[in-house]
C-alpha cells in the first residue's frame, strides 16, 4: 500500500515508520510515506483517521512516539518547530489579532532577522490578491481573505514543505471552489511541496496530484486521484472516494485474460488487469456512472455484463438521474444516468436490465465472512461526479 524509496538526496519529505499514541489510543500507526519535492500531496480521511496528527508531527507540533521524519537527508524528528523549514496554514488560520496584515505576513521573516522584507510582503499580498490590505487588522477581513493571509504568511518563508490543515473548511461552498483553483495556481507558481490535509475527497481530487487515503492511522491507498477513483484498492477507498456498487463475489476461475467470478448465483467476468486478486472471496465493484440501463435483455450490447432488476427509486439531480435498482438477490444497485436527453426517464417499478462493460468493473479483496461493504461515515463521504 505504502511506498518506500530511500536513498533520495533531494528535498523529498520522508515519513518513516511513524507511530503516534495518545495514551492507549493509536492515532498514527507505523506510517511510512514519501512526498516528492514540488508535489501537491493530499492526506484524505475521515475525522480521527490520524491525518492531522501526521501533519502536526511534520510541523513539529507533536512528537512521534516512534519513527523518523526526514526532509531530504535531514532528520527533523526531534527538531523544535521554529527550527524546521516547514510552515503551516492552520485550520482556524490563527492570524495574530493584534498585528496588521502586513505584520502578520512579515512575522516569519522578522523572527529570522530578515530586515528588508517590505517588498517581499507586498509581493505576497499581490500573489494572494490582497494588494492594499496591509494596514488592516485580521478582524476586518472576510473568511476567504483571512484564509489567503494565512497562506501568504506561511508562503513568504519559502518553506521546503507547506502544510495545509483543512485550509478551506471554514469557507462556504462557492468560495471553497474558488480557493481550490487559487491554491492550485499558487502551488504551480511557487513550486513548493504542499501537503494538504482534508476530509473532503472532492477537494483532494481537484487539487492534489497524489492522494493518500488514511483510515485508522494507516494509509489505505496512495496514488493519483484518477487511478484511485478508477481502480480503488480496497472497499474502503471504493466507497470513500465517490460511490461504488460492491457485489460479494467468489472467484471461480481464470479463462485467458479474464477472471471469472460468481455473485449471488450469477456469473460475471472481467479483465485480469482490473483484478487485485485471482482467487478466493472478493468484492466485484462498478461505479454508478459506469452502469447503464436497458429495457430488455435484447437491448444489452454484446460483451456487456448484465443483471435484471426493478427500479425502486429515482431522483432527479439535474445533470443526472440517480436510480436505485433492486437486483434479484434483494440488494439495490445505484445507477447514475446522465440527463443527456436521449433516453426517456424510467418510472419506479419498471423492469430493467443493468449492464456494464467488463473492463469498467474492478475486483478487490473481501474477507470471507464479510457480506456488507464497509461504508465510511455518511457525513464524510461526499458524492463525487453527481
Amino acid at each position, binding site marked *: 500500500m505504502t511506498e518506500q524509496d530511500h536513498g533520495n538526496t533531494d528535498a523529498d519529505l520522508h515519513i518513516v515508520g511513524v507511530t503516534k499514541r495518545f495514551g492507549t489510543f493509536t492515532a498514527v500507526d507505523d506510517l511510512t510515506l514519501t512526498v516528492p519535492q514540488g508535489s501537491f500531496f493530499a492526506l484524505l480521511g475521515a475525522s480521527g483517521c490520524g491525518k492531522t496528527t501526521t501533519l502536526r508531527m511534520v510541523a*513539529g507540533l507533536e512528537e512521534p512516539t516512534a519513527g523518523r521524519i526526514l526532509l531530504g537527508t535531514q532528520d527533523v524528528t526531534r527538531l523544535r518547530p521554529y527550527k524546521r523549514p516547514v510552515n503551516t496554514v492552520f485550520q482556524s488560520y490563527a492570524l495574530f489579532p493584534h498585528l496588521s496584515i502586513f505584520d502578520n505576513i512579515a512575522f516569519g521573516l522578522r523572527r529570522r532577522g530578515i530586515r528588508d522584507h517590505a517588498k517581499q510582503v507586498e509581493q505576497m499580498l499581490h500573489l494572494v490578491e490582497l494588494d492594499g490590505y496591509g494596514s488592516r487588522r485580521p478582524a476586518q477581513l472576510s473568511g476567504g481573505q483571512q484564509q489567503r493571509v494565512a497562506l501568504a504568511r506561511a508562503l513568504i518563508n519559502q518553506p521546503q514543505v507547506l502544510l495545509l490543515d483543512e485550509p478551506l473548511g471554514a469557507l462556504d461552498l462557492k468560495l471553497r471552489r474558488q480557493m481550490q483553483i487559487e491554491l492550485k495556481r499558487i502551488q504551480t507558481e511557487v513550486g513548493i511541496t504542499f501537503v494538504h490535509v482534508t476530509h473532503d475527497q472532492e477537494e483532494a481530487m481537484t487539487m492534489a496530484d497524489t492522494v493518500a487515503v488514511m483510515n485508522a492511522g494507516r494509509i489505505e491507498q496512495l496514488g493519483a486521484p484518477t487511478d484511485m477513483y478508477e481502480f480503488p484498492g480496497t472497499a474502503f477507498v471504493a466507497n470513500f472516494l465517490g460511490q461504488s456498487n460492491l457485489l460479494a463475489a467468489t472467484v471461480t476461475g481464470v479463462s485467458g485474460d479474464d477472471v471469472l467470478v460468481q455473485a449471488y448465483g450469477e456469473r460475471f467476468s472481467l479483465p485480469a488487469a482490473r483484478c487485485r486478486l485471482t482467487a478466493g472471496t472478493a468484492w466485484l465493484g462498478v461505479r454508478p456512472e459506469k452502469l447503464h440501463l436497458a429495457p430488455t435483455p435484447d437491448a444489452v450490447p454484446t460483451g456487456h455484463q448484465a443483471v435484471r432488476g426493478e427500479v425502486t427509486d429515482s431522483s432527479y439531480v439535474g445533470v443526472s438521474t440517480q436510480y436505485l435498482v433492486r437486483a434479484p438477490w434483494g440488494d439495490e444497485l445505484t445507477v447514475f444516468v446522465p440527463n443527456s436527453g436521449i433516453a426517456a426517464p424510467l418510472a419506479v417499478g419498471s423492469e430493467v436490465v443493468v449492464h456494464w462493460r467488463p473492463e469498467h468493473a474492478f475486483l478487490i479483496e473481501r474477507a470471507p465472512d464479510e457480506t456488507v461493504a464497509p461504508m465510511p461515515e455518511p457525513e464524510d463521504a461526499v458524492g463525487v461526479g453527481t
Partner: protein
Amino acid sequence: MSALGHLGTGSVASATPSDQPVAGGRRRRWVPYVLLLPGILWLLLFFAIPCLELLATSLYDPSGSLETGYAMTWHFANYSDAVREYAGHFGRSIGYAALTTLITLLIGYPLAYAIALKGGRWKNLMLVGVIAPFFTSFLIRTLAWKVILSDDGPVVSTLNALHVPLPDGRLLATGPAVIAGLVYNFLPFMVLPLYASLEKLDPRLLEAAGDLYARPVSRFFRVALPLSMPGVVAGTLLTFIPAAGDYINAQLLGTTRQYMIGNVIESKFLKVGDYPGAAALSFALMAAILVLVLVYVRRAGTEEVL
C-alpha cells in the same frame, strides 16, 4: 412605518400587532435606566455626596475643630501645606505601590499563565488557591506576617543561618517588610484579571508563532504578552490604586519611618482631628493617582484593547 403597514394589510386586526412593538420599544428604552437606578442612587448617596463633602472639608479654615465647628473660608493653602509637609509620605506611597505592582506582576504573570494554559483539570482548584486567603480578614493576614517576619521568626532565623546580612539584623519594621505585606495582600488582584485575559488566549496562536520561527522568548513577547495587555493593565490598576492608599501594612509591618500617606490621613482624621488637612491630603492623593493612571493607560496604548 406603521402607517405603511396599515396600508399594506388593510385590515383592522393588523392595527393591534403593529402598534404593540412601538409601545414595547418605548417601554424597553426605559429598562436600562430603571436597572441603573439603584446603582446610581447608591453612588450618589455614598460616593458623590461624601466626595463633595470631603472637598468642602478640605477647604475649611484649619483653625477650627470638631467641638468649635469649621468655617468655610476657601482655604486653598490646606493643599499646599499638606503636600509640602507630607511630600515624603506621598513619595513613599507612590514608590511602595509601584514596587508592589511590579513585584506582583512578576510573580502573578507566570502564575496566571500556568493556571490558564497549563492548569488542565486543576485550573479551578488553583484559582480557589489564589482566592483562598480572602476567607481570612485582611487584618488577620497582615498580623500573621508580623509573626512570620518577626526577629525570632522563621524567615529571619533562616536568613541568619544562611549568613544573609540584614540591615539592623531584622526584617520587621523595614521597608521590605511593608512591601512584602502589600505584595502578599494584593497578589490576587493581579492574578485574577491576568488569568481572565490569558484564559482567552488561543494556544493555536502560540503554535502559529512557533511555526513561524519564533523562539519561546520571542513567542512570549510578540504574541502572548501583547494579547494579554488588557489583563496586565487591569491587574496593575487594581493593585496600584489600593496599594497607594493602604496604611494597614505600613502600620503593622513598618515604623513611622515607613509610614505612607494613608497613615497620615488616618491619624489626622482619627487621632489629631485635623479634618481640613486630612481631606486635602485625601483629595491630593486621589488627584495624583488619577493623573498617573491616565498617563499609564495612554502609554500602554490599550484603549482599543480594553
